């Protein structure tokens, strides 16, 4: 959630680069609605059935607070044709990618700067 707060604060820098931010967790719709209200400039996805997480293989078994499966923190950058351009996963759940690094990855992989 810290990461989402940072992205919300700097959403205009992503908009300027013509990039939308979609945040996905396996929260149910009600919980995802609360997250959406907290971060109105991000697009929040409720992936309660983990269809998306399974398709992209980002499930971290047993890592949820209750011992269940949850998403391993993972960031995937897609261009507007839907092709993957960059993938990042931190080596620990204690770390988060900084917005500056994301913006640099967008400039490098989408805008070829």
């Amino acid at each position, binding site marked *: 959630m810290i990461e989402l707060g*940072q992205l919300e604060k700097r959403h205009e820098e992503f908009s300027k680069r013509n990039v939308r931010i*979609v945040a996905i*967790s396996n929260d149910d719709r009600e919980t995802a609605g609360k997250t959406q209200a907290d971060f109105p400039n991000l697009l929040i*996805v409720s992936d309660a059935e983990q269809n998306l997480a399974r398709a992209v293989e980002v499930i971290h078994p047993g890592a949820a607070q209750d011992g269940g499966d949850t998403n391993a923190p*993972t960031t995937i950058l897609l261009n507007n044709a839907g092709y993957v351009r960059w*993938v990042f996963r931190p080596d620990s759940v*204690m770390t988060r990618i900084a917005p500056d690094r994301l913006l640099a990855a967008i400039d490098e992989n989408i805008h070829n700067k």
Partner: protein
Amino acid sequence: MEHPSTPPRRWPLFLLGVLFVLSGVAGYVVAVSLARLDHMPWYLPGLATVGVLLMAASAWQRPGVLRFVGLGFFVLLCATEWLFVGVLFKTPAYQGPAVPGSKLPAFTATLADGRPFSNADVKGSQATLLIFFRGRW
């Protein structure tokens, strides 16, 4: 006339050790509050280890029940920090199908407002940054 001998002044090693351990915890709290979490907080168990060594030196110099109990507590705390930072909080390397140059596999999910969201929705006028996170705890 002889002066009564005074014991040599010693560094308060145990207290210093406690301060080292607490400074690591305080550093992490500050990092979280400033949202500066882009690096692994190795300083957390690292400072705890230095602190425990100082406490062990103190207990060696001036043995006492309280010192040994305190040392035992901080050794456990230090070991727990190493366990969490070095093992339990590690994430597996990504080995899924989303590799640069590929398209995402087909999927369906739901936006928070109830609208559907699928692989067809990642194409359009904008690039998309998918952020998978651990959910609202």
